[in-house]
């Protein structure tokens, strides 16, 4: 059986020392190992950004695509091979800026993949522009006088769009993050784990300390019921999105793959591609 070590490769991440993304990388590795996955059974599909590099830092199959499109790419992979564990990953700009459209539709479509976003409220790779999750008033290279746009709250959007598994983590709490990732992967449908993953180089506001002080850990809220959607939304609004833990979960929904007419248990990659002569003959009849 594979261990955490098997999910490590010898590539040194080009992240800055202290970047929150290191913890996300480690959490993914730990979660996969503890779930008994083998490296070849996993495909990580990532976007572009500092965070997008993560697919190259886990020893598994990995696809590093174009900016903002990790989700449609990952959904395509899962449709082709439903036996694979498919994880999509990227930054807040990647997922909630350029890729927001895909995010809403991935939620709606509910294909069984796990989406891990590294939310640092900034554009890291392009060196410090504000992001869709930057707060109002936030100063960045593109907002020297302070951000005059409002921050988008990913969890609120996800819940509003009808997500079935919603969690939020923090790079400083790896144990919680590992658990959330495992739950997300086990969930039969689309799962979002948004991670507060500080950018130590360009974001001097949303630091580790900032999150320690401002985030409410729902694991510690007695009686918090993650199956109560209205309460989940209330909690998000009350904390302005700054809460961690399992926020919402609905096990009653049927994932997309289980509803596709004629879709087989056997993954598409294993099907015989040759068309049956009788199917072809019947198809020709429609044009005769």
């Amino acid at each position, binding site marked *: 059986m594979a261990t955490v070590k098997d999910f490590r490769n010898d590539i040194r991440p080009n992240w800055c020392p202290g970047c929150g993304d290191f913890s996300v990388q480690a959490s993914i590795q730990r979660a996969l190992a503890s779930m008994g996955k083998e490296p070849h059974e996993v495909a990580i599909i990532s976007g572009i950004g500092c965070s997008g590099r993560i697919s190259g830092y886990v020893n598994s199959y990995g696809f*590093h*695509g174009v900016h903002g499109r990790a989700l449609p*790419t990952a959904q*395509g992979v899962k449709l082709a091979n439903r036996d694979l564990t498919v994880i999509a990953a990227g930054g807040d700009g990647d997922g909630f800026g350029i890729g927001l459209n895909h995010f809403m539709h991935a939620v709606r479509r509910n294909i069984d993949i796990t989406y891990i976003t590294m939310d640092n409220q900034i554009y890291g790779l392009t060196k410090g522009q504000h992001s869709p999750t930057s707060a109002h008033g936030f100063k960045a290279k593109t907002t020297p006088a302070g951000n005059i746009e409002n921050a988008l709250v990913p969890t609120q959007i996800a819940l509003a769009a009808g997500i079935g598994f919603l969690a939020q983590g923090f790079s400083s709490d790896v144990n919680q993050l590992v658990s959330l990732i495992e739950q997300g992967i086990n969930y039969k449908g689309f799962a979002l784990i948004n991670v507060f993953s500080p950018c130590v180089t360009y974001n001097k506001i949303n630091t580790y300390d900032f999150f320690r002080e401002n985030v409410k850990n729902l694991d510690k809220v007695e009686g918090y019921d993650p199956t109560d959607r209205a309460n989940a939304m209330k909690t998000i609004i009350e904390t302005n999105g700054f809460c961690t833990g399992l926020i919402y979960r609905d096990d009653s929904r049927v994932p997309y793959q289980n509803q596709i007419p004629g879709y*087989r248990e056997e*993954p598409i990659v294993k099907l015989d591609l040759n068309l049956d002569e009788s199917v072809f003959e019947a198809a020709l009849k429609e044009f005769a």
Partner: protein
Amino acid sequence: MLEQLSWKVGGQQGEGVESTGETFAVALNRQGYYVYSFRHFSSRIKGGHSNDKVRVSLKQYRASADHTDVLLAFDQESIDLNVGEVKPGGIVIADEKFNPTAPDHVRLFVVPITKIAEECGSAIMKNMVSLGASACVLGLPVDIFSEVIEERFSRKGQKIVDQNMEAARRGFEYMKELGGADPAFALKPADGKRRLFMMGNDALGLGALAAGARIMPAYPITPASDVMEYLIRKFPQVGGVVVQTEDEIAAMTMAIGAAYGGARALTCTSGPGLSLMMEAIGLSGMTETPVVIIDTQRGGPSTGLPTKQEQSDYLAALFGTHGEIPKIVLTPATPEECFTVMGRAFNYAEKYQCPVIVMTDLQLSLSKQTTEMLSLDDVKIDRGNLMTEEAIGAEDPKAEFKRYQLTEDGISPRVLPGTKGGLHHVTGVEHAENGRPNETAPNRAAMMNKRLRKLAGVELPGSVEKTGDDNADIAIIGVGSNIGAIAEAMEKLRADGLKVAHIQLHALLPFPTQSLTAAISDAKKVLVVENNATGQVRHLMSYFGVEHSDVSGLNKYDGRPFLPSEIYKHVKGMF
């Protein structure tokens, strides 16, 4: 008796013009006639003039006729807009309901179409009344429609079938009494052979199915949507899936994901969608992920002429996406070829591990036409250099697979995620043999050369098709649906004593410089016929080094397909 005839039905969009044309065409196709239909429509659902022009002949023509012999009009506007192309002495059949008038050069037959239909049961059956009247003119028995009527209405019960048949019969009888059964318009009997009747889009869908395509993410757009709608109906039988995505960027990247995952995946769009796919087409080229994109061209730019004919995406398809990648662009001309091209497209995509763009145009995609019987034997599935676990036989399971191995022909072994021993990374960033990002100068050069080497010097078989004369006075070059109008113009020009060659291009990338140069080398003049304003194919010829001293272009970009006479007249003017 006639060997060919052109019939047209016109009316308001949504009042049965399409179903009338369709019933007429299918019935005649089943008699063994060659049928070619072209629908003129606009991008609104109800209202606005639309018409369906159907050519019926004993031999195959793949273009609408210049003239109309018989015009069936559901309203005065249809007469006013179309009577100009009705031949002198031609027939106009019109509904008594709107007190039709027509100019003197035609013979107007006023038939109480709606009234008869109502007497038979309902005004909707006016299409049957008019079909009956049309059969009478063509000297065909009215029961050529009975099979189609049976198929179309049997779900609704025998009564409806009988009423429709009765409507057709009464239309026939009424026309006969008016003296409409004119032997001058009667068609010679056909060979009775059963052939197919389909549009290019149908054949693309069926071709994709036969080629083993099993995942199609796509976003609806005219004139491409039929392909996804077709596969939505067919895929459940083979375990495939069509996803209607949120946009074309998602469609393209999902297709790439599916192809990376190991499925044969395609998407289908038209110009606006092709523009949105460009970045991801580059990703496919850079990551060497095999995908097939169908572009059914329509009038551009922007929303342009969304329901009209044009061939103006060639340069975008060939040169679009930033950076440089190997790419294949195929240009089928007929439904038969739309069917077979899909098998080749997937084989090329997997062999060369690059994007393949199959380009049709609105006329080819939507014109329903007689199609020779298709055979599965014409589709062979070849997945290229795809490695299985056994073939890899990795001793060290942690050893990385060289997905981008530098090889002589540039083609590297491919392995699908899920395969033991095949672990590797894929990225759109420049990468080394193991797929890891690597931006060093020597690696960059080696990898760019490797990718481009895959298609360097390649000419795909059948890229250039030549018919007609050697040492021609003129070689006429066409792409896509122009094949029909050119072939017909050539026939007339040769009858006039001119030596003519017709060169049809079935692939534009890799550009078949050698074969095309050879094909036109003995011709005195070269004419490139294309539905665009700037002469894109003509420019491609000079860009790719096709040399000839006398090349000119005939361009049409008013949204209408070429008529054979337009090409004929133009060539006549050149001599």
